[in-house]
């Protein structure tokens, strides 16, 4: 099992730019062989968009999924709830009196969700940087990243002495 893990760690992709930068630094300073930093692995990237204008959210979703297609990222479920979230405020129409007459103000927030699967750390950074830079005005983005990690060394075997 350990052997498999070790071989796997070397088989794991290294970060796209780290090897370049470290190797150039190494040539400048010393000629020691630089150990490339292993890349992170993300099984799932969940993006939540919220905005006032559903048309803008739709266009942005189309943009992000198209970019994911070009970058070779596996797409998951992309969906949006059918109704917007209404945040209502009900106030008296008059200042103090006439309690039966009210006005309602409301803020509608539309949501949209996108899922992407199986990204390496450098792919995820590139993709997120690209789509976050192109985020239109009045749209908020929430990114949930599920990172995969190996079991820490001290948890693989039961403790010998306690």
């Amino acid at each position, binding site marked *: 099992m350990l052997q*498999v*893990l070790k071989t*796997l760690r070397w*088989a*794991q*992709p*290294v*970060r*796209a*730019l780290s090897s370049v930068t470290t190797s150039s630094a190494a040539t400048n300073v010393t000629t020691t062989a630089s150990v490339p930093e292993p*890349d992170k*692995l993300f*099984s799932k990237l969940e993006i939540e968009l919220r905005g006032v*204008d559903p*048309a*803008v959210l739709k*266009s*942005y979703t189309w*943009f992000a999924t*198209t*970019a994911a297609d*070009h*970058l*070779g990222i*596996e797409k998951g479920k992309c969906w949006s709830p059918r109704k917007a979230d209404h945040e209502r405020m009900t106030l008296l129409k008059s200042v103090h009196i006439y309690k039966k007459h009210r006005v309602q103000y409301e803020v509608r927030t539309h949501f949209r969700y996108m899922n992407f699967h*199986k*990204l*390496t750390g*450098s*792919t995820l950074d*590139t*993709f*997120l940087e*690209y789509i*976050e830079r*192109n*985020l*239109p*005005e*009045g749209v*908020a*983005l*929430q*990114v*949930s*990243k*599920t*990172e*995969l*990690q*190996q*079991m*820490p060394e*001290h*948890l*693989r*075997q*039961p*403790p010998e002495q*306690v």
Partner: protein
Amino acid sequence: MAASLTRFLERSQRTTHAALSSVRLFSNSNQQQPQPEVEDDEEFRVLNLRPVKQQFQRRRDIKRDDVTPPRTTRMAVDQDWTAAWPGPRSFHPASVPLPLRQGFTERGAAAPSKFANAELMKIPNFLHLTPPAIRQQCEAIKKFCTPWPKGLETNAKWRTHFPLEVITTDYCQSLPTVRNPEARRVTVSLKLSDLKFDDHARDKFLRLVGERYNKETDVLTFVTDRCPLRKQNYDYALYLLTACYHESFITEPWEATKSEADMEVYLFERNQAKRSTEAILNWNAAENAQKKSPSASYAQSVEQLINEGENEYNLAKYKEEVMKMLNVPTQ
């Protein structure tokens, strides 16, 4: 008549005399400073309550440059649109060669055209993110991407090598601050079957983690948000996992005092049922003879009967085991 006439003359003479004397009173001041005379020829200003229309003044013509025709008229049909509209920008009618119309009108009328149309300028446009532009940009950044490693295609495959899942959240928003307090939250989850336990440690570990263990999915989840930074929360979650794991292998002295009333499940081994069964099996046996012990299947059936409750299956199983153990022939 004559008398009254003379009296009038006298009076007039007197008045002229007084006038003369009064002049003489102020004479010295008059000689030094001649009194400023009010000009009689100037008129009073007139209050114009109802202004009469003045003579029409010709407005000066402001010189304006000729309006240049929109840029779209000079655009080639096969132009590079990504160069014409390279970045995000609000809508400009003269630069977009599309016959756009937007806005509300009365029924039957066409929507307002794109020129001087505020509706088109309000909404953020994606004219800089046309399909060719996305393709170009993605090709440029594709060199920073790396493919998913082979051998980890399915969930089951990557779970064997990477059992730990760490969920973090990032926010991109248009608030005055770039920080979101929710971004510090870290969720660490793993399957309990990935940790190695003995019976006592497993029981103690489940008691320590409590609500964080989901019995249905066998998933253990630590959610930490008490530290201000994400790194600290991640470290704290791993610390919790480690501490609980190691603590569960410690047997405290007071744990030996666990009595039968404290047990969560019925165990055949430490109960009266075992002793009674052994007594029955070794009835009238010689002192030196080897003691018979009840079979494992009988022990299991008793445990099932008490732990899961009396149902048809468990009772039938128990009956069968008892008859087998006592060598009672079945029919």
